[in-house]
């Protein structure tokens, strides 16, 4: 009994040490810390938007249209007298929602496609991976644009379109992971103990292939937010009046001479958030990837 509890403890300790090591590597890099702070702020702003926004982002006030930044309106107002800062704060909600849900869809679809292709091999592999190859032949943003336009725009369709457009990378990564992981002894051991395909896939392969997928998820959150901004910029994504950063850049462009901040501020918000997800994703990859251990 003592022996068994020791083993469990040992497992727990290594896992604890591992996550502590990852945190240590990441916190050791200033840029990564900065990225983590920005992401945290972004999430807090998105969640508590109604509490933080100084004005109602949808309230039009024709007395204060095209205001320059001032004490009352930190980032000025737009053509309908809506407060730009409040709209950026609410736009964070849209971005976060689209990012998290579309990447979630892409990861789940991609993990399963890659897992099935890699695990079963043969024809299953060929059919799934050729399909993935075909998807990868479209520029990601174009695929998202076409799907969103055909589905008809709006929040839900944008999420689905971006989710599908991002799937191929997960499938390819997962497939290559599984192809090497399934040769491991623990898979043979599990099989000899009578584990079926389902159990081997879910209990053994998914957890072991997950670390690089987590890195990809972090990086893709930025990509998805950038894609949503692009779609909304072109008028194919989130429909007005809902606050979305990309649509705000496009709106502001019309009044660039009068109030340039209207277009500049939301664009800066997009860049800062995407920048942070990329940096944290890269930091995570360097911390997780054993080949780079000790060198970065």
């Amino acid at each position, binding site marked *: 009994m003592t022996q068994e509890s020791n083993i469990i403890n040992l497992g727990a300790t290594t896992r604890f040490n591992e996550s502590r090591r990852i945190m240590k590597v990441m916190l050791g890099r200033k*840029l990564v810390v900065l990225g983590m702070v920005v992401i945290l702020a972004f999430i807090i702003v998105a969640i508590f938007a109604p509490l933080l926004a100084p004005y109602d982002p949808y309230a039009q006030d024709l007395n204060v249209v095209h205001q320059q930044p001032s004490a009352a309106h930190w980032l000025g107002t737009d053509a309908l007298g809506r407060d730009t800062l409040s709209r950026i704060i609410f736009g964070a909600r849209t971005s976060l929602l689209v990012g998290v849900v579309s990447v979630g869809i892409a990861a789940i679809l991609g993990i399963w496609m890659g897992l099935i292709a890699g695990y079963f091999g043969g024809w299953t592999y060929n059919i799934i991976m*050729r*399909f993935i*190859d*075909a*998807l990868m*032949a*479209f*520029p*990601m*943003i*174009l695929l998202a*644009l*076409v*799907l969103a*336009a*055909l*589905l*008809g725009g709006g929040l839900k369709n944008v999420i689905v379109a971006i989710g599908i457009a991002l799937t191929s990378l997960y499938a390819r990564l997962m497939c290559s992971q599984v192809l090497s992981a399934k040769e491991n002894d623990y898979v043979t051991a599990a099989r000899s103990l009578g584990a079926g395909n389902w159990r081997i896939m879910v209990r053994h392969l998914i957890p072991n292939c997950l670390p690089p997928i987590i890195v990809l998820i972090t990086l893709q959150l*930025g990509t998805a937010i*950038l894609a949503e*901004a*692009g779609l909304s*910029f*072109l*008028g*194919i994504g989130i429909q007005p009046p809902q606050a979305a950063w*990309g649509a705000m*850049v*496009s709106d502001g*462009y019309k009044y*660039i*001479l009068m109030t*340039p901040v209207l*277009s*500049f501020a939301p*664009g800066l918000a*997009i*860049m*800062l958030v*995407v*920048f942070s997800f*990329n*940096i944290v994703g890269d930091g995570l990859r360097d911390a997780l990837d054993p080949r780079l251990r000790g060198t970065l």
Partner: protein
Amino acid sequence: MATYIVRRLILALIVLIIISLMIFFVIRLLPGDPIYLYMSRQEQQTLTLEQIQAARHEFGLDKPMVVQYFEWISGIFHGNFGDSLFYSESVGALLKRRIPITLNLGIPAFIIGSVLGTAAGVLSALRRGKALDSVMAIFSYMGIAVPIFWLGILLIYVFGLKLHLLPMFGYTSPTVDLVQNIKQLILPVVCLAVTPLASLARQSRSSMLEVVRQDYIRTAWSKGLREREVVMRHALKNGLIPVVTLMGISLSYILGGSVFIETVFSIPGMGALSVQALLSKDYAIIQAVTLLIATMIVVVNLLVDLTYGWLDPRIRYS
């Protein structure tokens, strides 16, 4: 090598067939009647049910899907991409006019992005951990994160509206006025080159870092070679091989980016055409443009794979 080439060709062909099937069926299976492919919105509202049925028959939409697919494909091989509704001319004629404009914009961006991106990556790898490396890292992160449509607006504001240095938008054919053409293309080309430049810089940096750790580089140093010789003769040759594979991704960035840049700078190329087509549901154009772009990327990736196999024999036999 011959087996490798044949295998790659067959694979590319299969992928192209899947792509054409995907484009054809996705457009037809999504909500909406495929008759929209052939009729303007006004016609759809004014025509009687019988007339629509007659039109359906005329365009062959009452035939089985499979037959329709083969008719579409054989049309493409005869240069017939169907007719645009919005522009009331054939899609083939539209593309013929617009593809050169996108190439005029995309090729310089591709060259600038590839050359500068690789150079920046190699340089940061050689100066690893120094100030230059950190500055370049921040810039490449920014280059990947920046929404290029916003960057375009920013540049228009600074160089066009404030400094009056460059034209803000429009396109002039180089055969009409070369100077004006170059002036008008500077800003859009810079915007379009940013993403591939930044991503290539990062990739070539890590690829070079892999190489400079190899034994043969240490041998080269220990032979007493100068840095120039070590880098040029030994490190670059091997370090740049994986970078070649990123050419397809760069092309993908540029073709995707042209959709935004052509919109922001009012350049009448293929990208602006696709936005128009998507907004006006001009299905014939959407089909043709997506097929064309995907085909271009598959072909470039095929060439990249063949080059890679030729440069690195290990690839051929795996």
